[in-house]
């Protein structure tokens, strides 16, 4: 039984594509067969983040037009067994695809893959509708900022209206130090408002940006990094494993802050 999961957020720039690429890689590492579908027609990025841009030959549009078979359009990641990408067309816009088209594609993929992860575009217009129409589950990405959280709330409402009730939250780009100093919303604040189960917390880390620019998902590199672990944990939780959340604050601990806490400062 394959799972069709949409990664969405409402607001742009909160890390949908970064999460999609890393989650795909993490699930592939857990020996799952994963198809990543870029639903951001006209503004595709997923191939860049995966470092697969130069290997894209056909796109989803070609498949729908009958110009190639689905299997030909799928780009296989050579670094990780089981990771595939279905690229979006860059020279078209969102209107060139309909929800029915997306359903056709995902249903076909469902026959051969354990996970189909759809990277949704920002916004709540047709592109978003295309991305969610065949999904059974949704991962909401937000950052601890009011605008992002507000948009996430709106999107959750829309998903619920469409009958998608398995909705999970990933809070991205958390800065534990700022939260501690009361300068940033905490994960609890976000959860209290959105009231959906938490699937993962990813700390703000420059290595995520470096990995993005290199076109190699962080998960493919060193496993000791906290963001890498955070992505791996999300994959394990999706698989049904109970994994405790990483205490981000303690990871940043140093002697001084520990002493300060000891003396009640």
């Amino acid at each position: 039984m394959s799972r069709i999961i949409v990664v969405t957020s409402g607001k742009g720039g909160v890390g949908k594509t970064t999460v999609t690429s890393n989650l795909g890689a993490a699930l592939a590492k857990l020996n799952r067969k994963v198809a990543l579908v870029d639903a951001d027609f006209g503004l595709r990025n997923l191939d860049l983040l995966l470092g697969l841009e130069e290997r894209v030959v056909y796109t989803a549009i070609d498949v729908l037009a009958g110009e190639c078979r689905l299997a030909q359009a799928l780009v296989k990641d050579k670094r990780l067994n089981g990771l595939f990408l279905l690229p979006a067309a860059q020279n078209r816009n969102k209107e060139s695809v309909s929800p029915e088209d997306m359903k056709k594609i995902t249903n076909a993929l469902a026959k051969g893959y354990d996970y189909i992860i759809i990277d949704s575009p920002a916004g709540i217009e047709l592109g978003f509708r295309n991305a969610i129409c065949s999904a059974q589950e949704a991962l909401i990405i937000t950052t601890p900022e009011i605008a992002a959280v507000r948009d996430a709330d709106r999107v959750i409402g829309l998903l619920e209206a469409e009958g998608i009730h398995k909705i999970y939250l990933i809070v991205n780009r958390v800065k534990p130090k700022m939260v501690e100093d009361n300068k940033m919303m905490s994960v609890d604040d976000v959860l209290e408002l959105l009231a959906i189960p938490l699937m993962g917390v990813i700390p703000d880390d420059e290595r995520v940006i470096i990995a993005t620019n290199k076109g190699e998902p962080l998960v493919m590199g060193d496993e000791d990094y906290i963001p890498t672990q955070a992505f791996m944990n999300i994959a394990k939780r999706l698989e049904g494993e109970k994994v405790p959340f990483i205490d981000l604050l303690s990871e940043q601990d140093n002697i001084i802050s520990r002493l300060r806490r000891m003396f009640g400062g």
Partner: protein
Amino acid sequence: MVVDPKLSLDWSSDTPVSPLVERYSQIRLKQEGDSWFLVLPNQSELEGKSSWSELWQELKHYLQGREKSWQPRTSVSLLAQDQLLDVQQLQTLAEILEEAELCLETVVTTRRQTAVAAATGGYCVEQNKLSQLSLTPGLDTTTTLAEPLYFNQTVRSGIELRHEGSIIIFGDLNPGGLAIAVGDIFVWGRLRGLAHAGAKGNRKARIMALQMEFTQLRIADLVARSPKFPPKTDQSEVAFIAGSGICLAKAVDFAKTHKFSEQYGIWIDR
């Protein structure tokens, strides 16, 4: 009919501003005796507001959150008013109702084209029956309130609840969410969005919440925004109209300490 909006920057212009209380329409489900009716807003009410897809969205939210007080496969009559509906739209509507275990059976309309579409779609059609029904908006709304609307979900950003009676929300009213009631509003959770009670001018209406963290409150034609630094309290509070405008008080004591003065149209201390 399309109204040309006057886009004037002149503050002193005496263009009449439509009062908040009149911007009011929503698709709604009503029970009369054993029969259920789905009422569409009429064309003038819907004007400029929403496209059909927005209306369907609204209906889906409404049916999902609403307390289900009907039996599975209950049949529903659609009061389509003067709306023009084609076969496709009726089909969509029937599908949405289906999800809530309701079954579209009859279409009541004043438009010939809608009647033809309904007949084509295989529904019973009743034409021009509207005038005999007390359900037409405007007839029953001024005096009697509809049954309270129980809403069992969080009202999220972008969701609008509008109801001809009182609204009771089991959950939070989130920022960006909107509840508009002709009667009172009770939020059994946090009120962080916008609530408008007494939306047809009833100054007696109250808004109660377990926790008041609203962005804006409206009662009748008065508006209050949240203070810059709201005082933290764990008490549940009630908002009402007093001499100085919309006020907040502790909800537990309110019934004992306040009474409504019909003479002044405000709540006063007992």
